[in-house]
């Protein structure tokens, strides 16, 4: 057994040039081939790429899709986002677990199948969903879950689970997925027709500085959520000193409830690739990387063929469209299950084959990013916008949207509504309009921008989707009045705890304590002062954490306190002085008995 592992690992390392910066690719392949990255494999890899085994271990243990211990030949990752819970996650999980005879997180004794759960996989509009190795299964029910296990037992070949394919390119032979696009509203920027090369031709007629001017005049702001002006970012990277520059496309949409980039990658791959190429020309870069979240691995062969096709058409490669001295090419970097890698500096770390720890800023990526070179990181949708802007002109684009936010926004809408899916809408649309469009009945609250942004109640449904009011990277979740808002807040606090990189103290430890405080209140043991403590602790974490994850993680709790404070207030009561309500006497006795190995004679 050992010989093939050693040989296979060496062969994989060689294929990636024994290059330490390609560590992600190496460990992902080792994982896929051998079911884990064992300590032996780590030593092997370390030798091949000239690093230390502990460095390999630090990478492998960071990402949830990689494991040191052997996993089953097939790994079922059931999506456990709140929307999946609302659509029956618990029953599906229960049915699958019973059918397999293992509990969540375990592998069947024969080593065939592992059942585990994972945060949002970008399928909230077709929940409950799961990843079976790389294959996406959607609209699960307990019965379908059981059938899936029975089928897998028979063939252990996940692609065979796909009996019906979705619409559009989901049916493409290189995708062949049951995923559906659910495009409910087609806007002029993303879903109008697009001929590959058309925007690039117009771009190459301009000087690079003029391209940047065009982007600036369009007032395009980053679509990932932070809303940084794209033109300024490009200009900073162009003007920064460096021997080489990089264009990174953030296709790691991990914000729970987001899936619009998945649809753009499936249906508008050329617009994304062309936008990156335009950025390359403007910034003076010859290399682009798409950081594709591990959950979307099923799109990788398709995207690679799209890249290959563009090379054939002279839209990538050297002397693009005959323009002497303009080379540009793109590779795909696969992620491996880490929400924090959506943060641009963490994404860069991951592309370099490191843990996905965000970095200290400054320096900012446009000054020093990938491999120390000036780098721009833009979202999938931002690159699509860039393509359309160069095709139609800055003023065409700037004429759409709200006064301070130009263009359209692609939204992923899910939750309690009849028409979940992807909507391209002009900026400035109100939350109420979204409720009507999606045919949501009895909507009581909405999560705008996913858990890292804000939960709003019905009194704010008149608010507008734009950077000045209800800012969002695209995730919108609708909850009806019957949903338990405090449960939602706690669910997402758990999510952030799980996804924290653990680098800085406030996020790593503060969130655990916040969780305790919330739990104490929800369990009915809280006092009014606990609500103040929760707020103080939240604000402290937000202000002192190093990156956007920690700075956003308390938002679900803060939002619940602000918008639904009476719910928490109804759970707390003044206690007698001298009592510690969080101290559970009977539980403490049980714990003590367990440790002592005998029963207390006084109970």
């Amino acid at each position, binding site marked *: 057994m050992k010989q093939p592992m050693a040989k296979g690992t060496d062969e994989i390392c060689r294929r990636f040039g024994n290059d330490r910066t390609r560590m992600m690719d190496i460990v992902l392949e080792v994982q896929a081939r051998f079911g884990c990255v064992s300590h032996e494999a780590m030593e092997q890899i370390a030798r091949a790429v000239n690093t230390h085994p502990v460095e390999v271990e630090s990478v492998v243990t960071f990402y949830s899709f990689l494991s040191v211990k052997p996993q089953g030949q097939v790994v079922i990752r059931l999506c456990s986002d709140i929307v999946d819970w609302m659509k029956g996650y618990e029953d599906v999980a229960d049915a699958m677990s019973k059918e397999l005879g293992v509990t969540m997180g375990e592998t069947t004794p024969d080593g065939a199948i592992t059942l585990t759960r994972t945060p949002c996989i970008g399928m909230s509009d077709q929940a409950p969903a799961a990843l079976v190795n790389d294959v996406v299964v959607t609209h699960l029910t307990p019965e379908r879950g059981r059938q899936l296990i029975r089928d897998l037992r028979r063939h252990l070949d996940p692609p065979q689970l796909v009996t019906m394919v979705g619409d559009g390119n989901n049916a493409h032979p290189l995708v062949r997925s049951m995923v559906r696009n659910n495009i409910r509203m087609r806007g002029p920027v993303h879903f109008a027709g697009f001929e590959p090369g058309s925007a690039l031709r117009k771009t190459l007629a301009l000087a690079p500085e003029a391209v940047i001017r065009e982007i600036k005049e369009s007032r395009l702001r980053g679509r990932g959520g932070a809303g940084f002006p794209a033109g300024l970012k490009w200009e900073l990277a162009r003007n920064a000193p460096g021997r080489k520059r990089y264009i990174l496309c953030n296709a790691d949409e991990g914000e729970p409830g987001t899936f619009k980039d998945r649809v753009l990658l499936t249906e508008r791959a050329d617009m994304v690739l062309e936008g990156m190429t335009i950025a390359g020309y403007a910034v003076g870069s010859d290399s682009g990387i798409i950081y594709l979240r591990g959950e979307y691995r099923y799109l990788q062969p398709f995207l690679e063929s799209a890249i290959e096709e563009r090379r054939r058409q002279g839209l990538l490669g050297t002397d693009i469209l005959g323009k002497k001295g303009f080379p540009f090419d793109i590779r795909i970097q696969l992620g491996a299950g880490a929400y924090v890698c959506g943060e641009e500096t963490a994404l860069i770390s991951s592309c370099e084959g490191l843990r996905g720890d965000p970095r200290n800023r400054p320096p900012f990526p446009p000054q020093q990013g990938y491999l120390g070179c000036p780098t721009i990181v833009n979202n999938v949708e931002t690159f699509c916008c860039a393509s359309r802007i160069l095709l139609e002109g800055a003023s065409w684009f700037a004429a759409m949207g709200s006064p301070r936010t130009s263009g359209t926004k692609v939204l992923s809408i899910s939750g309690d509504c009849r028409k979940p899916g992807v909507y391209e809408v002009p900026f400035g649309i109100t939350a109420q309009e979204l409720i009507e469009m999606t045919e949501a009945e009895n909507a009581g609250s909405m999560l705008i921008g996913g858990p890292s942004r804000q939960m709003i109640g019905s009194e704010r449904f008149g608010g507008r989707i734009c950077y000045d009011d209800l800012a969002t990277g695209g995730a919108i979740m609708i909850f009806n009045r019957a949903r338990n808002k405090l449960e939602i807040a706690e669910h997402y606090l758990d999510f952030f705890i799980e996804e924290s990189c*653990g680098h800085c103290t406030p996020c790593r430890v503060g969130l655990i304590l916040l969780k305790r405080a919330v739990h104490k209140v929800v369990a009915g043991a809280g006092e009014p002062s606990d609500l103040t403590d929760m707020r103080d602790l939240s604000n402290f974490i937000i202000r002192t954490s190093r990156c956007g994850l920690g700075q956003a993680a308390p938002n679900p709790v803060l939002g619940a306190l602000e918008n639904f404070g009476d719910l928490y207030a109804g759970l707390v009561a003044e206690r007698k002085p001298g009592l510690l309500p969080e101290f559970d006497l009977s539980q403490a006795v049980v714990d003590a008995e367990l440790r002592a190995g005998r029963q207390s004679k006084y109970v």
Partner: protein
Amino acid sequence: MSGVTLTIDGKSVAAEKGQTLLKAAEGAGIYIPRLCAYKDLLPHGSCRVCSVRVNGRIQAACVQTVTDGAIVENETAELQEYRRNIIDLLFVEGNHFCMYCEKSGHCELQALAYRFGITAPRYQLLYPKRDIDMSHPDVYLDHNRCILCGRCVRASQDLDHKNVFQFIERGCRKRLQVNGEALAATDLQVTDEAVASCPVGALMRKRVGYSVPVGERPYDNIPIGRDIETAGEE
């Protein structure tokens, strides 16, 4: 030398371009509390004890470089409260028993707690279950006391030119790992800078504990940071 001028708590401070706020303040006799910053190692920005407000925004002084005209707040009630919180969090996260720890009186975490007047943590202790690695003949590693500051990681790499330590896992499971089955299997030596760099009692030399009597230990009489402050007074 190209200089910049900034103000820290209203005091005008001259600094060199490219200097970190932490170093610039130090040069002016102003102590900004810190834990993960160590000598000239690359800043880690992880403990966040050195959080200051720079032109209104909270930043880590160990990472942030000086800019001309910057207005820096250091000893405000808000920031002191946050720092107290961070020190508290580090205490409750691990298992710190100062009363019998050999590092007592030499420990920067303990000294900071004293400087901030912390006598007991305000949060509930988490009591994690952690290991002790006694395998090495001259050094032991007590994970109970590790605060994940990364000083040993960087010191081993950049000062000792080895690679004995690295972090593994993430979030609240993040922990220090050694490059080998145990400390004894690494090339760590007791004289390594990595060992000396530990601010707490996690990475300790064997057989030298308690050698300085209580009352004569570095932080028994002089609060942490006082050396920086007195250097500024001269």
